[in-house]
């Protein structure tokens, strides 16, 4: 296994120097055409690879034109309701780029991607990224490097707003599919498809429901402890939650304030205690961030406030275990980051090997997780989405550990 990979890697390196990144498009296209003719995947990709070494850069323009026709073929296949099963083929070189490497959920997502790579007989993607989740320029650097390396696919959790548009577009121009996961590129520039963990509106619904469960029928005051004021994910979830709260079923729940702990433990503790002092009738802190929720729970624990003020939100079961046990955090939710990484890898692999195209209506089967479909993303003006879901809600009966 190992030696095979090594051999492949050597070959791949030599090839890569010759063809650079741009020639990847024809490879995908060729693979697609042949795949559509019903050829065996293994053989087709090899042929495609050989073809590209000679085809060189001249074909790039032609390739761009062929993409549409190849795409149409797949659309009709999908329209017929056949889900493409993504199967093992050639190894691909890929970059798995999280918001940052030092928050527990991202190594988890990478482990899912590694699992998928192993199933697909591919080398694991390179897990690289900035140390600090606020380091946008770090992500730009890694994106640019990946393009220079001519990788076959990039899996990205965007840690900024629109600042990654240009490097993502550069990747797309070089024929590298950019599959976003966890956090998309808002304008969808250069992005192939977004693998969404859950529907952002659903996040709002789930948080509102947990708040109602915890506060009971008579309702009460609660506050939100978020990450940073400019964190796109959190802002979208909070907005969705506020929309749900406007409904009549949630009239008893009063959102008194939203504060930010910058996804730093110390700041989050300070912010949580600030909430407690500013709002004497506060009964719940809702933290849609894994760093914030655990800091809030710890702050309530050490100040002996767990009896009066509960904590909920999005948290990692293993981090929240003691607070679930103590009753400080009776209920919280999250999706599986392992599954998210797994699915993102399957999608990226499928696109990179030409088994699927990033188009509305494409249906596919991703290993143990089953069937999914690429749709237009309803939460953005542009862009495509694969919706993973669902939420797991954790509580004393289901601590998740």
């Amino acid at each position, binding site marked *: 296994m190992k030696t095979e990979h090594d051999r492949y890697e050597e070959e791949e*390196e030599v090839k*890569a*120097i010759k063809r650079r990144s741009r020639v990847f498009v024809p490879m995908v296209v060729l693979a697609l055409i042949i795949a559509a003719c019903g050829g065996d995947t293994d053989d087709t990709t090899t042929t495609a690879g050989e073809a590209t070494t000679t085809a060189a850069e001249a074909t790039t323009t032609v390739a761009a034109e062929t993409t549409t026709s190849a795409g149409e073929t797949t659309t009709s296949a999908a329209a017929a309701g056949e889900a493409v099963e993504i199967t093992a083929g050639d190894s691909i070189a890929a*970059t798995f780029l999280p918001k940052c*490497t*030092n928050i527990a959920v991202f190594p988890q997502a990478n482990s899912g991607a590694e699992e998928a790579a192993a199933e697909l007989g591919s080398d694991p993607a*390179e*897990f*690289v*990224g*900035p*140390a*600090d989740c*606020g*380091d*946008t*320029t*770090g992500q*730009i*650097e*890694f994106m*640019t*490097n990946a393009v*220079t*390396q*001519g990788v076959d696919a990039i899996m990205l959790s965007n840690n*900024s*707003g*629109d*600042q*990654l*548009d*240009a490097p993502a577009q550069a990747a797309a121009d070089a024929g590298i599919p950019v599959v976003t996961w966890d956090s998309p590129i808002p304008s969808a520039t250069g992005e192939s498809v977004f693998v969404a963990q859950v529907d952002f509106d659903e996040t709002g619904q789930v948080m509102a429901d947990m708040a109602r469960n915890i506060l009971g029928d008579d309702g009460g005051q609660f506050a939100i402890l978020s990450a*940073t*004021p*400019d964190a796109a994910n959190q*802002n979208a979830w909070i907005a969705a939650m506020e929309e749900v709260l406007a409904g009549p079923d949630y009239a008893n729940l009063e959102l008194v304030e939203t504060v930010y702990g910058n996804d730093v433990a110390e700041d989050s503790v300070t912010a949580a205690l600030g909430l407690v002092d500013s709002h004497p009738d506060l009964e719940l802190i809702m933290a849609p961030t894994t760093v914030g929720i655990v800091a809030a729970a710890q702050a309530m624990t050490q100040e002996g406030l767990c009896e009066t003020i509960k904590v909920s939100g999005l948290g990692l079961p293993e981090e929240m275990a003691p607070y679930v046990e103590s009753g400080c955090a009776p209920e919280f939710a999250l999706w599986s980051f392992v599954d998210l990484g797994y699915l993102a890898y399957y999608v990226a692999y499928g696109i990179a090997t030409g088994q699927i195209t990033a188009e509305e209506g494409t249906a596919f089967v991703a290993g143990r997780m089953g069937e999914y479909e690429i749709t237009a993303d309803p939460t953005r003006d542009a862009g495509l989405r694969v919706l993973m879901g669902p939420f797991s809600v954790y509580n004393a009966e289901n601590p998740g550990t």
Partner: protein
Amino acid sequence: MRDWAAKHRWESILIIVLAATIVVNVSLSPFYLGFGNFVNLFWLSIEKIIVVIVMTFVIINGEIDLSVASVMGFSAAVMATLYQGGELPFALAILIGIAVGAIAGLLQGLVITRFGLPSLVVTLAGLIGFRGAARVLLEDRSVGDFPEWFESIGQQTLVGPFPVALLLFFVGLALAWVILERSAFGRKVYVIGNSADVARFSGIEVDSVKLRLFVTSGAVAGLAGILFAARVGAVQGTLGETYELDIITMVLLGGVSIFGGSGSMLGVVLALFTVLNIRNGLGLANIDGITQTGVIGLLLIGSVLVPNLAQRYRLRRPRAEAVAHGPP
């Protein structure tokens, strides 16, 4: 050659380190030796290295400016806010953004020279305060969709294969080199850095020189912030956060004494090339961000320590000479 090396110990060491870095990079990654990659390597850090030039002056002068990254963010935020307001021509918004940077530098410079406060303290407050001001202006918004010509300044290769910002850097560097090492002003900067008292006694208008440096530092940081906006096509309140440590690291690695009075532009340029090449090479070898930073930290210590120890044990000379800095 030998004479040059003896006179420019620090620069010689950096040349060796840089050469070693390039050799290692070539062996680590087949993608390193591409022209596009070399342009990228500068382009990805262009804002930092532009500020490095002016920070060299500030530190040689015996001061420090910790606020540069925050001023970058503040200037860009002012520009973005004006642009969003839509009442001013965009070019004017850019000029105002740079001017705001200069004013930020002027304010800090005035506090430093009038009250005699250490620049570290004043610019530390500036670091917190100007970042805060940027956040006040933009809150949680991200301002983008700038005119195409503006984004092309940062993103496209306008002149030959080089982005405009890169050309700006090289022009600025040449200018700074001449000013620092060939002009009366440059000599004053060194004299003040060596001893502000001596400078005062010899009739140098110390406060005025310092003030001019802080204003320039602010203006250049403002310009860098705006170039940053052009490169990434969007401005957030957090733009450039924590850049100050990277910038200062490059200057110090260049052999500029933190106590002022010594250091050379050549050393700083070599240090800057070295850091950029290390980051790029490690990045292409798929080594993550935190490890890159660690390697640069190690290099920073090692580049001073190793020659010190070598000098001490091999030549058994007194320590005073072992800590060799650039030309006075």
